[in-house]
């Protein structure tokens, strides 16, 4: 009996040979399509490759002209790489493990322009959107960042506040603004008048209670009695001595009354200067009325937000997106050593463990698209180390170090992506100095400083610890050029003049994820204070003029009322003083009569 089934063996060998031949001839084409397709599903935009060649003998791959479009701007490339080459280890590939010791990426650029749109076809776009997990924490952060941008920055700029102030000062009528019945000073006059009248009444009552005339009459009688006394007995002497003692006491009492009358006289004479006493109330009235034309203060957040808010949110959005990609393709936790399955158990034997993908080192070199004023791009170089699909199997975290400069500009990028163990920590630091303001794409307008002409230094830090995202950036803007204000017309010119005086400012931006999955943004800058100070200076003289008008008007109102009150008080005062004087004279006369 023939053992081997040749009718199966021969066709099988032929088919395998044909498949191998097909792979040798067309493998590169198939792989190129696969890489493009996978890239498009990761980045959500078109990916193009000029050529892709593989070598089975060397197990190497070489890619020329890799361009990945930017999902946020389809006419720009997110990355544009001239050449990528690497050798992989053969045996791990047979175990579906892709191990690369060293990879070279040269001619890396970003933000380069595209001639054709990088938008995916509707079919691929639909597939990409389906792939995105809408309910993930990062999707929430994305939504939050976008909503915040619309909420904060689609408002009109704060120029309206200047228009308000200008029209208020121009059409200002103090008389219309003053409500007499609500003036504090008028109320104060009435109160003072009432107080003085009460005081006079009290004095009058006190004088009546003193019964001065009665006492004078009594003293007169006593004097008569003493003068007519004839001493004939010892009793007469005793009686005369007693009367003289009483006269002495009366004299003392009259001295006391005179003192009281003098004090009262001084007090009454001094208490009628109402206009002096109501001065504080008048000042308060002036302030109160003037406040109706107060400068609507610019929301200090608005200015820095107008300058950098949208750019900051866009950058945060981009970083969140790429950090989410890192998190997605570098899971925190690797497989358990023994895994229970529905059918049986996997027994794990000691082996040289390889992750599915390991790239020990990628050497990167290229040019940054951000060009300085002379058009010289920043040449940079650096490396990414320990990229792995199973970080737990690699002893080191992923690190990124890129340094570049073109003589004037410096660029430094440092990254640490540690997904070993059950937690993950991603840290990205980007520092740039000598950057042209143009690279920030801050829109130019009449009321903002010409940031596009400035020299900028940026230091930013992005951190993702598990699902908690936080980031911050310190921006120093200096050497801002003055702009030509001839064409600026209307109320906006006030703000334009102010911002034109600003030559430098600093800006600090922060963003942090909250527990509900939304993003909390904060932007601080000393430009707010600089502009506020300049505004105060500009309007302070005009506001002072208006205040003077208010004061004049209030004084005119008070003058008549004060005169009426003062006249009224004067009459009462004169009457009271006359009374005091007559009483004083009577007392003095009677005192003279007392010769003891």
């Amino acid at each position, binding site marked *: 009996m023939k053992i*081997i089934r040749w009718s*199966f063996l021969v066709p099988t060998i032929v088919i395998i040979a044909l498949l191998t031949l097909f792979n040798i001839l067309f493998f590169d084409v198939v792989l190129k399509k696969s890489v493009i397709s996978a890239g498009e599903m990761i980045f959500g935009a078109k990916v193009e490759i000029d050529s892709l060649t593989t070598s089975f003998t060397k197990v190497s791959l070489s890619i020329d002209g890799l361009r990945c479009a930017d999902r946020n701007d389809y006419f720009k490339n997110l990355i544009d790489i001239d050449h990528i080459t690497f050798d992989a280890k053969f045996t791990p590939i047979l*175990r579906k493990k892709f191990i690369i010791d060293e990879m070279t990426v040269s001619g890396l650029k970003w933000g380069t322009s595209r001639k054709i749109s990088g938008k995916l076809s509707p079919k691929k776009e639909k597939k990409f959107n389906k792939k995105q997990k809408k309910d993930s924490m990062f999707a929430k952060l994305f939504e939050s960042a976008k909503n915040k941008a619309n909420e904060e920055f689609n408002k009109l700029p704060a120029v309206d506040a200047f228009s308000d102030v200008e029209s208020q000062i121009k059409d200002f009528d103090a008389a219309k603004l003053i409500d007499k019945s609500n003036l504090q000073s008028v109320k104060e006059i009435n109160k003072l008048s009432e107080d003085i009248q009460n005081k006079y009444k009290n004095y009058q009552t006190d004088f009546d209670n003193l019964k001065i005339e009665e006492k004078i009459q009594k003293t007169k009688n006593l004097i008569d009695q003493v003068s007519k006394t004839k001493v004939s007995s010892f009793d007469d002497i005793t009686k005369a001595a007693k009367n003289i003692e009483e006269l002495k006491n009366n004299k003392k009492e009259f001295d006391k009354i005179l003192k009281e009358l003098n004090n009262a006289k001084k007090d009454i004479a001094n208490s009628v200067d109402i206009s002096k006493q109501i001065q504080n109330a008048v000042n308060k009235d002036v302030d109160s009325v003037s406040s109706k034309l107060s400068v609507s203060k610019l929301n200090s957040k608005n200015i820095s937000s107008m300058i950098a808010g949208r750019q900051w949110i866009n950058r945060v959005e981009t970083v969140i997106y790429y950090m989410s990609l890192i998190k997605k393709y570098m899971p925190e936790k690797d497989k358990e050593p023994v895994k229970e399955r529905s059918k*049986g158990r996997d027994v794990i*034997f000691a082996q040289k463990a390889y992750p599915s993908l390991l790239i020990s080192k990628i050497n990167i070199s290229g040019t940054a698209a951000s060009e300085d004023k002379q058009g010289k791009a920043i040449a940079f170089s650096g490396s990414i180390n320990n990229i792995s699909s199973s970080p737990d199997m690699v002893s080191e975290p992923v690190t990124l170090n890129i340094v570049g400069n073109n003589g004037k500009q410096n660029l430094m990028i440092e990254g640490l992506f540690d997904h070993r163990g059950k937690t993950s920590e991603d840290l990205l630091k980007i520092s740039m100095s000598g950057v042209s303001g143009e690279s920030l794409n801050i829109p130019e307008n009449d009321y903002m400083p010409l940031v596009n002409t400035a020299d900028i230094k940026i230091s930013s830090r992005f951190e993702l610890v598990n699902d908690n995202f936080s980031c911050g950036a310190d921006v120093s803007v200096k050497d801002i050029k003055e702009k030509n204000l001839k064409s600026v017309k209307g109320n906006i010119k006030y703000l334009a003049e102010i911002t034109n005086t600003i030559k430098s400012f600093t800006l600090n931006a922060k963003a942090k994820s909250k527990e509900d999955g939304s993003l909390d943004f904060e932007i601080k800058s000393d430009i707010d204070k600089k502009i506020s100070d300049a505004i105060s200076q500009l309007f302070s003289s005009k506001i002072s003029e208006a205040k003077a008008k208010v004061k004049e008007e209030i004084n005119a109102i008070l003058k008549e009322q004060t005169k009426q009150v003062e006249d009224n008080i004067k009459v009462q005062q004169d009457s009271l003083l006359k009374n005091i004087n007559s009483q004083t004279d009577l007392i003095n006369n009677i005192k003279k009569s007392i010769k003891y």
Partner: protein
Amino acid sequence: MFVLKMLKKIIVMFQSDISPDQIAWGFALGAILGLVPNLLMKIILFVVIMLFRVNLTSALIGCALFSVVGFAIDPLLDKIGYFILVNIKFLKPFYTWLYNLPVIPFSKFNNTVVMGGLITGIALIFPNGILAKKALVYYRANYRDKVAQWKLIKLLNTALNATKIIKKIG
């Protein structure tokens, strides 16, 4: 149509003079195929079956039958596999070596049910082969002629012939 063809092939296998050895070894190898749950292992075993001149119909019968048996005795296969993989200490270096070879780990030989199924299947090759051969020889000697007279068999033959004629006319 496929069912009819399969039925015919089975009947032919039993009723014709095809070598009982081919049928018996086909059945024995098919049994291993049925007991092993891993796809790669199944492909390797299928290629082995295809390489040797064994009866494919009997291999398919063996595979189908022992798939059901394997499903029922999964816990037992798990225990056998665990014993072989873990308790036989001197084989550990061999498994470790296998585990570090390219491609081989894809066969999931380190899974207890896969290993249990494979070993059980290999252990049952000779008993299965011998028993299948004896059973077939006994059947052909005692029942083949009687079964050939069954109306069902005649009907099946008629149906298949009619289908062929219809196909030719069509």
